[in-house]
């Protein structure tokens, strides 16, 4: 058996992806509408005087929270995709496509309308919304339909469409000023990132990602199918619920803070599986690091591409992700 031990493979993956994440963070800090650039960042990093003292504020108080929030939400969404792909044994599953993110958004909007403060209650409402959608999915999954495995994915697509309609409904029946800039939030917006948000998402992500890492071998066994997994001693129901709750929690909080960012959970796990193989003990840390890097770079594009102002980062992730979905669909069909 030539395959190296998992520990070695995890370390190898980290050795590749950590520098990538570091590079993404540095790039994300370097550029933006407020100027800067790598040399200025380097000077600020090593403590040399920077010509423009405001740049320090821009680097550390504006871009750093933004870059960190992007990193965390990227990690969360990539992990979310990974978990759902293992749970449903379908490479096209992803929190956004399955409507989990949409459910979280409904929760967040209802929370805003109920007058709940955004942290942490808005995030909790969002988690409840995500969990509700997951509940619906589980219910649908328990029904036997002619479509089999794909039925769940289709139900997810329907749930997503339904959530979109509910969101538009909520927006049109209330002329609440608190929903004033909800549309840009829905498209995924990181421009107002603050350290309190980073702290909240960091705590949730750290807890959930650690939990998922301890369930990663269980996810490997899930790939064998339910009967095989159970006959190998996997407590299937408990594992499924643990995965669903951890994923809903982190996706819910991420959506409440950053809005709807689609397809990240599709692009990243698939790419990483091609590079590092199907072992989830390797893929969980890989998704955290690569998902984080990917989202930082998407956010950077959203900031620097438009001639004036910026676009929601959800536009970038969807522009990259939706075509990737089609490519995957073709591969899956073969």
């Amino acid at each position: 058996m030539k395959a190296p031990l998992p520990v070695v493979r995890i370390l190898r993956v980290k050795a590749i992806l950590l520098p990538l994440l570091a590079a993404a963070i540095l790039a994300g800090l370097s550029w933006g509408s407020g100027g800067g650039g790598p040399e200025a960042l380097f000077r600020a990093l090593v403590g040399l005087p920077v010509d423009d003292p405001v740049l320090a504020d821009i680097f550390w108080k504006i871009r750093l929270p933004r870059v960190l929030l992007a990193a965390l939400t990227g990690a969360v969404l990539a992990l979310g995709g990974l978990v759902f792909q293992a749970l449903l044994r379908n490479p096209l599953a992803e929190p956004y496509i399955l409507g989990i993110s949409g459910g979280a958004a409904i929760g967040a909007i209802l929370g805003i309308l109920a007058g709940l403060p955004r942290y942490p209650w808005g995030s909790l409402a969002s988690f409840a919304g995500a969990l509700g959608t997951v509940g619906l999915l589980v219910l649908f999954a328990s029904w036997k339909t002619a479509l089999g495995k794909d039925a769940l994915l289709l139900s997810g697509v329907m749930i997503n469409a339904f959530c979109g309609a509910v969101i538009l409904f909520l927006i049109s029946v209330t002329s609440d000023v608190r929903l004033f800039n909800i549309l840009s939030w829905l498209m995924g917006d990181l421009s107002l990132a603050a350290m309190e948000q980073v702290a909240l998402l960091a705590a949730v992500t750290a807890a959930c990602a650690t939990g998922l890492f301890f369930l990663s071998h269980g996810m490997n066994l899930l790939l064998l199918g339910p009967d095989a997994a159970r006959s190998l001693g996997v407590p299937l129901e408990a594992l499924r619920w643990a995965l669903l709750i951890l994923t809903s929690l982190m996706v819910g909080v991420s959506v409440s803070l950053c809005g709807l960012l689609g397809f990240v959970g599709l692009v990243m796990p698939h790419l990483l599986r091609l590079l590092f193989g199907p072992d989830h003990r390797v893929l969980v840390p890989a998704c955290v690091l690569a998902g984080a890097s990917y989202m930082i770079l998407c956010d950077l594009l959203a900031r620097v591409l438009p001639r004036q102002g910026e676009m929601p980062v959800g536009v970038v992730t969807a522009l990259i992700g939706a075509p990737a979905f089609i490519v995957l669909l073709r591969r899956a069909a073969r």
Partner: protein
Amino acid sequence: MNPAIEVSGVSFSYEEIPVLRNITFRVEEGDYFVIIGPNGSGKTTLLKLLCGLLKPQRGILTLFGLPLSRYRRRALARLAALVPQAAAIDAPFRVAEFVLLGRAPHQGPLGWETPEDVAIAREAMKFTGTGHLAGRRMDRLSGGERQRVLIARALCQRPRILLLDEPTAYLDLAHQAQIMDLMEALRTERGVTVVLVSHDVNLAAMYASRMVLLAAGEILAAGPPPAVIAEAPLEQAYGCRLAVETNAGGFPRVSLVPNGKGGPRPLRPAAAATEVER
């Protein structure tokens, strides 16, 4: 000594549809036990009951004298391993990785493999003749290769009972014999009790030490092959005319008797039997 498996008065139904009715039999340790029967007779359901994937509504199953319900799932996984029907594996696992997954019931939650785990997996692959496939991807294997890899994974569980669901389906004759020989070696060299579901009556008759014939959820015949491979119970089970002969090796052989209304015509009018595979 306790029997490896004892099934007494077991009934099972999916929702309202009864699948198994009042099943009673026992499998002694070291048996090569084959469950045969027509499609839909409840063979696979019986196998799932034996490894605890399903729970019977009535009756009791015991493994080595202890009721199945008293085993924890992991403990059961170390005692009885299931080789499910060879389904396509979606994930592009390498064969070596895949076989190692069989060590799960002996490992911690993260499945870190010890040198011992690796040695056991390597040995299981050697035993099943899949060592040379170690670096290949699961989704690139032939049917026979995949079946042997599935068996290697089950052997990694170090089970005392091996349960197999149609391990020879979709395989050609040579590969069928290869799998059945492997089970015989497992039984004689390691003392593993083999319980196998098959609808290939002839193959089963050649290898089984004991067998049961299942039809419509009930046992029609049980015992050593000559007791089960008899025209009366088989015709009742399969609902068609059959002939049982003895072949060159001295094994019973079942074949269809043409009914003369369409279908194959007898080549020689006097002889009733024509060779028809299944």
